[in-house]
């Protein structure tokens, strides 16, 4: 109890401290006032931690958004972030098969949806990027000759008729550098918050589930049926942000988390993805092997293998524990996680 009180007090302290910060105006020394941006977090999602070295500003976000949609970032000016991360698919991609160069393991990975990124502390299927700022360079690079590409991108941005002024507005200097690009895009990405699905509105008492959706939610949490909550937590972010092996293969083609930790015990483990907007982010899994939610349900019900690192929650799950009706119900529940306001919010669309 004492501990709780202390925590509450401390939390209060932090909130006050943060409040103060939000009122501040960032002046990087160019005499130009940068307007602090205050994230609008829907009820049901926690406050988002913003790194002290990259405070959000209107100017930074606007710049990040422009860069996100601009093919200038790719070495050959053909592809923007938005080409693989499309808003109406929850910023995932439904088509691209993606191959890589020397700095990545062989094996295709499916583009991940982008929302609520500010809550994660590592990125990519294997958690390889440790902050949101850093993951930006991955896609910019041609994997083989990365430094040359980046240098070209920076040169192009510096020679561009509009960008130097936009960078000056955002960061106080019109000489574009790699860290500025990373920070701007990360600022925009942090604004991409999704928490206004039917599920959320039901939670807030503004809507109600159908009988099937309600059954689906109960089965989702039922330890003898779906048992999905262990990993895809109920509510909030719908993920525990852990790395787990879900038995997709008996011998994993993609070593997953082990690529980062080099531990045999991490082979075949991948980051638990959020299930928000799952209806629109097909294909599913790190390699996009499943095209429908029914295939996903079949995997969890009967299809999973028993590799050494299989997660304990699945190892103890009985195969065939769900009926077709159970699976239909869970799918109906999953569809209540689609946030149409997010998918169509003009603030995230091409500027």
């Amino acid at each position, binding site marked *: 109890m004492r501990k709780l009180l202390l925590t509450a007090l401390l939390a209060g302290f932090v909130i006050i401290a943060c409040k103060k910060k939000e009122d501040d105006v960032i002046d990087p020394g160019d005499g130009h006032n940068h307007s602090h941006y205050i994230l609008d977090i829907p009820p049901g999602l926690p406050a988002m931690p913003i790194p*002290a*070295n*990259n405070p959000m500003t209107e100017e930074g976000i606007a710049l990040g958004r422009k860069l996100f949609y601009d093919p200038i970032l790719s070495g050959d000016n053909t592809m923007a972030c938005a080409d693989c991360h499309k808003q109406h698919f929850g910023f995932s991609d439904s088509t691209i098969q993606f191959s*890589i*160069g*020397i*700095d*990545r*393991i062989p094996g295709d990975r499916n583009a991940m949806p982008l929302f609520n990124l500010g809550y994660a502390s590592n990125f*990519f299927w*294997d958690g*390889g*990027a*440790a*902050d949101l*700022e*850093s*993951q*930006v*360079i*991955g896609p910019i*690079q041609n*994997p083989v000759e*990365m*430094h*040359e590409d*980046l*240098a070209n991108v*920076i040169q192009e941005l510096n020679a561009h008729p509009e960008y130097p002024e936009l960078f000056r507005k955002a960061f106080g200097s019109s000489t574009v*550098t*790699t*860290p500025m690009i*990373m*920070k701007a895009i*990360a600022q925009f990405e942090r604004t991409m918050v999704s928490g206004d699905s039917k599920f959320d509105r039901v939670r807030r008492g503004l809507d109600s589930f159908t009988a099937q959706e309600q059954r689906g939610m109960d089965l989702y949490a039922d330890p003898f049926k779906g048992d999905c909550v262990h990993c895809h937590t109920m509510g909030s972010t719908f993920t525990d942000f852990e790395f787990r092996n879900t038995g997709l293969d008996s011998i994993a083609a993609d*070593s997953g988390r*082990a*690529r*980062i930790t*080099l*531990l*045999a015990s991490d*082979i075949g483990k991948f980051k638990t993805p959020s299930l928000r907007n799952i209806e629109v982010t097909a294909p599913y899994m790190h390699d996009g092997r499943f095209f429908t939610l029914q295939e996903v349900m079949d995997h969890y019900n009967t299809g999973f293998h028993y590799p050494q690192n299989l997660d304990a929650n699945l190892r103890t799950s009985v195969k065939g524990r769900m009926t077709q009706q159970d699976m239909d119900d869970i799918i109906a529940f999953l569809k209540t996680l689609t946030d149409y306001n997010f998918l169509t919010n003009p603030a995230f669309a091409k500027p």
Partner: protein
Amino acid sequence: MITLKSCFTLTTGNLRFFSYFSESIPHIYESMKSYSASAVSLLIYAVLFSIAFGSCKKKNEDPVPVNPGTSGKLTIFFRNLAGGQEIQFGQRLYTNAAGNNYQVDMLKYYVTNVVLIKDDSSEFKFNNYDLINAKVDSTCRIYGNVVPNGTYNRIRFYLGVDPVRNHTGAQDGDLDPVHGMIWTWNTGYIFFKHEGDFMDSTGSIEPLLYHYGTDPVLAQIELPIGALRIDNNEKKLYLNFDLNSLYGSTHTVEFNGNNIRQSSSVDDRDWLTSLFENFQNSFSYDRSE
């Protein structure tokens, strides 16, 4: 002999991403990081902060804080060798302990957090993050512009980037991703990169690509450097780095079947461990003047 041209320093440049005040006082920032849990630490923070702001202010008013008569300058040169010879790029001139004939097309590595240790075991920290590119002489040196007077007999540094800086790419100076020393899909710097080729056991020429890194193999190197006396003067310290030692002392690194390593698979661990242990023996003190 390498020809030596002028170069740039970066003792504090890479710290820009921490708050403005800490930029000018990396020392204090570092020591603050280690206290953080208790109320006592809050107090310490408060005191440190006020000291920090105090010293910041002062610095702004007086941009030349160097106190003449108490310090000198030191340039540390890294000479890059293979079997004791200056590396010539693009020629298959070298033979490692395993008998593999190899060549070097690219050799780059990070030397960071250089510390000079005095005979009374007090230390002077450079707080540097330097990328040595063996092909570019001007990068093969590290500057200490204000080294306190005294006699130093050891040097210590990291071959690699410490965990504090290793997990974000949004940094400038030698840590800017533009140098190509960061993995594309894994936030982490490539501590050491040797790219080239070698003649395999069947006589055919195969690529050699070694990208070494990840936190557990951040190698700390410590070397005796004679008795380096800094006394209001300008000194030069020459260190050698030898690739044949890296591949042969004490673990023998065989290139056959082991020629592409990117620190990205469980299978890379033995290779990482060998290099990690060999790095200590790959640097040596040459001379100072």
